């Protein structure tokens, strides 16, 4: 296996803000790598450094073994990119933008292979290429970027929250497309996201970052311990000791009339019959969300570093503020 992306101790400072603080990231050839983290964790900053759009302040980064800052244009011949916030030229039609990006990537837009791919994608994404870009909604702008990225084959796809603004049907089309390029073309994919289900469905390996540092990295199987399902039920007449005795149960708490615990997602099926024997009432089973994952596993660190916890999407988090500054 050859390494496609390698970042070691990557740092980026914007004035006094530390956007990246010693980030490590490894992507092997042919793998779909999930890049997970809440808004403002530094995903887009990392991606911009990997594309040579901004310069790193410290650490090392290489793409295909080369320096992304010094050899940006040469590297870009092998890369397709979907930005997190797709901006288009308002007076160009979507079809024109798709062809323009293809040509800038060195594609012969008259070639039959390109025409076929483009047409197939336009149909799959149910996209009208003749409207001017200023009239496109967020989802349609996203489609332009996705079609432009997929219409010309690349060795590495860097996708920054590519499904934001897409409806569920289009998300499914996107998933098919990723599976196709990963299987047929053997391409490597760096997929940044904050949607755990999307990453679970597509990715071989995952790196989770928070506040500019990688906090977890590994295959999904290795990270399975992070994804626990929360189970709760009424505490009336329940013997807490009996609950704790059930295999696979963690973090049992009793309070406000409810018993709560977590269980490894793969073991839920084994736990449920035991709960039936205990005759639990008003049972709720909550699959893990990324948000809970972060709060559960990093909540203590967050409070320790004196950062207000408001959930990954809250605009008040300091990282989100940083993101606003850097735009």
């Amino acid at each position, binding site marked *: 296996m050859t390494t496609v992306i390698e970042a070691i101790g990557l740092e980026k400072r914007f004035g006094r803000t530390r956007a990246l603080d010693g980030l490590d990231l490894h992507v092997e050839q042919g793998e779909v790598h999930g890049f997970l983290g809440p808004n403002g964790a530094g995903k887009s900053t990392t991606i*911009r450094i990997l594309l040579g759009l901004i310069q790193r302040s410290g650490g090392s980064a290489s793409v295909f073994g080369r320096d992304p800052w010094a050899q940006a244009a040469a590297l870009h011949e092998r890369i397709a990119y979907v930005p997190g916030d797709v901006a288009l030229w308002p007076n160009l039609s979507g079809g*024109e933008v798709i062809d323009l990006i293809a040509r800038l*990537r060195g594609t012969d*837009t008259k070639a039959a292979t390109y025409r076929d791919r483009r047409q197939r994608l336009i149909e799959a994404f149910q996209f009208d290429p003749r409207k001017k870009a200023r009239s496109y909604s967020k989802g349609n702008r996203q489609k332009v*970027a996705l079609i432009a990225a997929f219409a010309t084959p690349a060795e590495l796809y860097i996708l920054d929250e590519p499904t934001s603004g897409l409806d569920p049907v289009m998300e499914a089309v996107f998933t098919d497309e990723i599976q196709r390029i990963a299987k047929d073309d053997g391409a490597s994919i760096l997929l940044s996201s904050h949607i755990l289900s999307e990453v679970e469905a597509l990715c071989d390996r995952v790196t989770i970052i928070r506040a500019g540092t990688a906090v977890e990295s590994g295959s999904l199987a290795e990270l399975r311990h992070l994804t626990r399902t929360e189970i709760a039920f009424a505490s009336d007449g329940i013997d807490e000791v009996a609950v704790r005795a059930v295999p696979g149960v963690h973090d049992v708490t009793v309070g406000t009339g409810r018993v709560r615990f977590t269980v490894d997602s793969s073991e839920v099926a084994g736990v449920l019959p035991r709960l039936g024997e205990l005759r639990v009432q008003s049972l709720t089973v909550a699959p893990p969300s990324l948000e809970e994952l972060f709060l559960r596993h990093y909540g203590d660190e967050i409070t320790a570093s004196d950062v207000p916890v408001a959930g990954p999407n809250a605009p008040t988090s300091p990282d989100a503020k940083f993101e606003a*500054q850097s735009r």
Partner: protein
Amino acid sequence: MSAVGTLLRFRLRRDRVLVIVWVVVFALSALFVAAALVQTYGTASERFAVTKVLSIDPSLLALRGAPDGTSRGAFYIVEIGSYLMLMVAFMNSFLAVRHTRADEELGRTELVVATRAGRGASTVVTIIHAIILNALVAVFTALAMIAVGYGAGGSFVLGWALATTGIAFFGTGLLMAQIFSTSRAANGWGSAIIGIAWVLNAAANAGATIAKDGVHATPSAAVWFTPIGWGLRSRPYTGDLLWPGLISIAFAAVVIAGSFALQASRDTAAGLVGARRGRAGASGALAGPVGLVWRLQRGSIIGWGVGAVLGAGLIGGLGKTLQDAVGSNPQLSKAVEEMSGGGGTVLESFIGIMMSLVGLLVAGAAIQTMIRMRQEEVAGMAEAVLATRVSRLRWYLAFVAVAIVASAVILFLAGLIAGLTLANVDASLVGQSIVLALAQLPAVAVYLAVTALAFGLVPVATTPVGWTLFGIGIVLGEFGSLLGLPDWVRQIAPTDHTALAPLARADWSGTWVMSLIAVAVVAASALAFRRRNLTTV
């Protein structure tokens, strides 16, 4: 109505800096020019001599105004009256679009309309906003004039004329904002209307009937066609009429009523001129960075180009009349030659002067192209292009190349048009006027290069640096001698170093020096840009 009150307070807060800047700009420029004229042309006999020359030269009549005696006030109005009107017109047209169509285009209006404020509330607030701004401009300009010693009555009539003309162009801007679905198009057409009004007014002045004393003139009837003419026919300091301003107000009322009617009948965010469908795929021209830059900038480049070529056409139209008028009077011929820098025949000097104006318009196109580069970076489109195999240098040079080539083409066309319209006077002028036009290119390149340098070193400053340079260029180039500025100040303007007629004795050293400076600065900026982060703030 409480929604209107809330919106108005918010609006004045949002625009407080802009309002203050506009008022200060008007008051200070009035103060500065008024003081400079008192110093340079302090005595009635000095003003008499200049006015006398002015009234026999239709090109000067067009570019300045129809004289109305030789009093200090009259002289002031002739020299910069129409330019003050032009400034107030642009201020108002941009204001109207900025607070209606631009907000609507960016989706802010939707937020406001979704509250209990009605669909027309933003427009009502914008009208009140404009009235407040024009009143402030009027009062502070008048106070500035009074402070330098001009008569109080005339100064307030000047303020009244500015405010009423301003409101009239506020109305046209508002109408354009209703008709077109993008602020770019609305501002473009608003500016075109102002340009046409200014040219009509210039034509009315050029065709003025001169009184026997040579220092009074009555513009032709066309002066009554435009708000600029209505403002100037208030005759501040000489006639002190208030009623021409009422025509402007009546005009504004009709146009604003039309805007409301259009707004009432259309969907939010839609225009009267709808968005056309585009091509399904890109044409062969949209292939690389150069094709993209041309596609992005062609509208504004063509706009500036049409202005420059029309200006050049004016040279031909006026040149013949100038030749006839001056030719019969050797004494005046000498005076005109001296005024226009000396050397060469009257026509050659005249072409030289006019080409520096054309050069400024072309510099505007070049500056705007450099500013576009920054706008692409801020809006995130630069990122999309630079994430492909296009290198930063190639992307940057595409903007520079489009700006330079377009400038050269416009200058060539302007020279050709000026020459052809003069060909019946002297066929040899065709070649000369092309050379004199192209001689502006190094000066244009200097404007371009300094704007590009800001882009490379201090990207946030790109737009302010670009337009400030343009403003300084106009003040120094067009009013430098009028204001009696010292030579070293006037020499800051690149246009001061272009080769002048007659070509046989022209000094080309400035051309080479400016070209070298431009190339060096563009290269330095390219290096700086390659070393910096892309920023979107």
